[in-house]
């Protein structure tokens, strides 16, 4: 049996032991038999009768939190609260489908319930507190590291599984001890399991060594160690349990390689093995736990379980991923803007607001008896029968539909960092990016930055609206080298497509003199490079993204203008572009882009 599958089931056992205590499991997998099998095993391990509720991606706030049950309220003549999914799942499990696309506001409700164990309802004239001790299973179907459930959620989930590399055949085996009976027994024994203080120390130390910042991880690991002991029928945590906990909880969160003395020798051996697809690296740790003092053992166990992909990334980055790099600090899950209505709010009917008829009637319904009584008093009893059939709607009932702002723009800056003027231009672009971000809260825009020089293009800042992240991303400003324009256009295209998939309107801004001299293959040569660049430019035009070319050459040359024409981009010669002018130009273009994008939608 593969180590990955055995780990996945072990995590299921622990989670089933105490769903609310462990927060949950992030299951990265494609929809398919492996994931279904894992879910089946999990359900079989949960005590019978525990709720297991599914939350659709676009769940409404009312369904999630609960609110006024209008039918029952009108039927019974008194306010009747309707329970939401969170309260319904109390004591059980809540399944978030396509968690990587779940709205940030939905995530916020879920994390609030995880933190407090209850739902605080302050809606539709109802105030109540309901127990919501739930565990979350987040089904994460993200394709790459950029697409992940919100970091705020993942931080609270003890286990992060990746089932993508597991074959269906492997799932036929179930490790010993992974039976409902054992889990039940362990659940009863759990409160009495003790853990020596040195285990807390070892797990904290391991978390620090792996660059796991959040303290929740260490706490969850300590709980996992206890649960592992309970599962093995012990009443005290052993070294083996602590090592297992580090492996299950800490390894998947690592952001840097632990600095051990043996590292130098281990590196070359580790890498080829980790890359071997048929023999996962975890296998060699199956037999037992490493020797040595406890903290080292715990750390080594976690290290052995580091996902191969992460290990590669860590090694490539020289041992440490900057927090804030895409996928680690977590793709900031901003709202998905598809012009979708996102509920209703009280408001007046003006400025083209759209009345939400159903919500307005809902708001008016409970007040009908009061209003009728009032109207009758006012008019005398003459029209009683005639009036009573009418629904009395007043201005204060009006509910207008809130839409996601369809004008959200993602401005992708593609900055030429080649040659001597590179530093200067990058600094300008950086200034413009920050100026745009400074008022991003109001405008709900996002900004990304690609720099190109030498052999290729590099994504310096993935789309973000956070100044904090932007500052981190912009800290590095490489400059000098050739001009690989084609590669830059290609990566901007990829980014723009991704933005469009999220329902945003991408705007691509090139800051370049247009003089390409490095081709797609990374080889120099002006003619070839130019052809490649124009070809890439044509594909950008075909895709139909709004584009702006800012010519940064000191004297106007035909290169950049030709590039702009090929892309069907607006051309703006700006030899002395300062940050303020730049941001103004981009803002104008962005409004235009949002306008056309809107009309096309």
């Amino acid at each position, binding site marked *: 049996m593969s180590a990955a599958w055995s780990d996945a089931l072990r995590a299921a056992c622990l989670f089933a032991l105490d769903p609310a205590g462990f927060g949950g499991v992030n299951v990265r997998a494609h929809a398919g038999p492996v994931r279904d099998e894992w879910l089946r095993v999990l359900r079989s391990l949960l005590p019978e009768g525990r709720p297991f509720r599914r939350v659709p991606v676009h769940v409404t706030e009312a369904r999630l939190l609960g609110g006024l049950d209008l039918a029952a309220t009108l039927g019974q003549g008194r306010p009747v609260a309707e329970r939401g999914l969170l309260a319904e799942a109390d004591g059980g499990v809540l399944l978030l489908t396509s968690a990587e696309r779940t709205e940030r506001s939905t995530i916020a409700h879920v994390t609030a319930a995880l933190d407090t164990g209850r739902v605080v309802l*302050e809606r539709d004239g109802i105030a109540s507190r309901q127990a919501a001790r739930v565990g979350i299973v987040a089904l994460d179907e993200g394709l790459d590291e950029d697409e992940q459930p919100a970091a705020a959620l993942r931080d609270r989930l003890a286990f992060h599984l990746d089932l993508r590399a597991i074959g269906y055949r492997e799932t036929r085996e179930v490790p010993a001890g992974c039976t409902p009976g054992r889990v039940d027994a362990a659940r009863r024994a759990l409160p009495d399991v003790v853990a020596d203080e040195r285990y807390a120390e070892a797990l904290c130390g391991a978390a620090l060594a792996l660059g796991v910042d959040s303290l929740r991880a260490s706490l969850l690991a300590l709980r996992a160690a206890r649960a592992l002991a309970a599962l093995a029928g012990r009443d005290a945590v052993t070294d083996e349990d602590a090592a297992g906990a580090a492996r299950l909880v800490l390894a998947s969160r690592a952001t840097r390689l632990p600095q051990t003395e043996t590292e130098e020798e281990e590196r070359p051996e580790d890498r080829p093995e980790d890359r071997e697809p048929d023999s996962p690296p975890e296998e060699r740790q199956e037999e037992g736990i490493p020797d040595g003092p406890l903290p080292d053992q715990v750390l080594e166990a976690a290290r052995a379980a580091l996902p191969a992909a992460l290990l590669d990334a860590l090694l490539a980055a020289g041992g440490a991923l900057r927090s804030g790099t895409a996928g680690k600090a977590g793709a*900031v899950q901003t709202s998905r803007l598809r012009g979708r209505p996102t509920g209703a709010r009280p408001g007046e009917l003006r400025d083209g607001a759209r009345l939400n008829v159903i919500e307005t009637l809902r708001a008016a319904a409970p007040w009908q008896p009061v209003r009728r009584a009032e109207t009758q008093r006012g008019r005398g009893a003459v029209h009683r029968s005639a009036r009573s059939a009418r629904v009395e709607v007043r201005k204060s009932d009006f509910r207008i539909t809130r839409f996601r702002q369809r004008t959200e723009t993602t401005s992708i800056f593609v900055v030429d960092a080649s040659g001597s003027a590179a530093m200067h231009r990058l600094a300008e672009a950086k200034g413009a990016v920050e100026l745009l971000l400074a008022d991003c809260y109001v405008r709900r825009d996002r900004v990304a930055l690609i720099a190109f020089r030498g052999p290729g293009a590099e994504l310096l800042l993935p789309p973000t609206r956070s100044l904090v992240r932007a500052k981190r991303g912009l800290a590095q400003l490489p400059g000098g080298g050739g001009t690989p324009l084609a590669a830059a256009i290609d990566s901007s295209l990829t980014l723009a497509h991704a933005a469009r998939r999220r329902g945003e309107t991408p705007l691509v801004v090139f800051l370049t003199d247009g003089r390409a001299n490095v081709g797609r293959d990374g080889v120099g040569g002006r003619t070839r490079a130019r052809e490649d660049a124009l070809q890439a430019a044509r594909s950008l035009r075909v895709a139909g993204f709004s584009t702006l070319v800012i010519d940064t050459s000191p004297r106007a040359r035909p290169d950049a203008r030709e590039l702009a024409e090929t892309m069907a981009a607006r051309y703006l010669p700006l030899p002395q572009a300062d940050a303020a002018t730049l941001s103004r130009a981009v803002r104008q273009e962005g409004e235009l882009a949002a306008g056309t994008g809107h009309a096309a939608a």
Partner: protein
Amino acid sequence: MAAPFPFSAIVGQDEMKLALMIAAVDPGVGGVLVFGDRGTGKSTTVRALAALLPKMRAVTGCRYGCDPDAADDRCDECRERGRQGELGSRTLPVPVVDLPLGATEDRVVGALDLELALTQGEKAFEPGLLARAHRGFLYIDEVNLLEDHLVDLLLDVAASGENVVEREGLSVRHPARFVLIGSGNPEEGELRPQLLDRFGLSVEVRTPEELATRIEVIRRRDEYERGPAAFVEKWKRRDGRLRTKIRKAREHIHDVAVSDAMLEQAARLCIALGTDGLRGELTLVRAARAVAALEGADEVTEKQLREVAAPALRHRLRRNPLDDSGSGVRVERALEEVLGT
């Protein structure tokens, strides 16, 4: 729901704890914003504050918890009753009210009592969260995710100290003075400048990096979760001491002197930092005075100014896109410049 984690058992995070204590001593400082890393106990600390606050006196039978000693800041009902005779009073815990993200407007400002309307056809006002938070604290976790229209509404009420509701021909106004406490993670998005400015103090929390501190955090948290009642009992005396400290500081704060020299230092500091408006200066002095009161000092000195400069000013700095250093560092630099090292 188990008793909250004791305030005094929170390891480190001194700036956050001090800022909350300042707000408890002098609510006029105007709210605390806690921004920072995940898993640093932001909301734990805020919720712990509730247990720490000395009780307050309120008018008997008043739904808004009006202060019996503040004759000109009462709800209509109390004003009416006050005219007729003496108002009775009772002691109440200071409210710390959670504003959940999914709250609808009617529950925040208050609306007609649905139950009465349905069962008896009567129109009666049911106070909302703002009324419940009067004279206490209103806490918004993940404040940067709060809906815009709710933000506007809160700003309105926080500015006027009064909540006005007009609905179904019912017109209600009642005092709503509360200390706004917000927490969040800056990576989830920035806070709107208007809201940022409403907070008197802004605290940045970081995950502790020393192993010993981290172990201590985990140890206490674990102990609490395995036996909340026993843990709270163990820390009860320390929490009690803090409570006494807050109570004494509240009585003492009016006697704390602020010399002209200190006022000048505060002004120079704000000029050096280029903070907008006078609000920064005012908050700086008030917060320093609260700290002095907490310490039992009779006078504000540079020591207290230094202590509160970062939380009072860091969110009021003008944004400088080309300065990468954190706002805390910029405040430090200005402190050195103005007050010397």
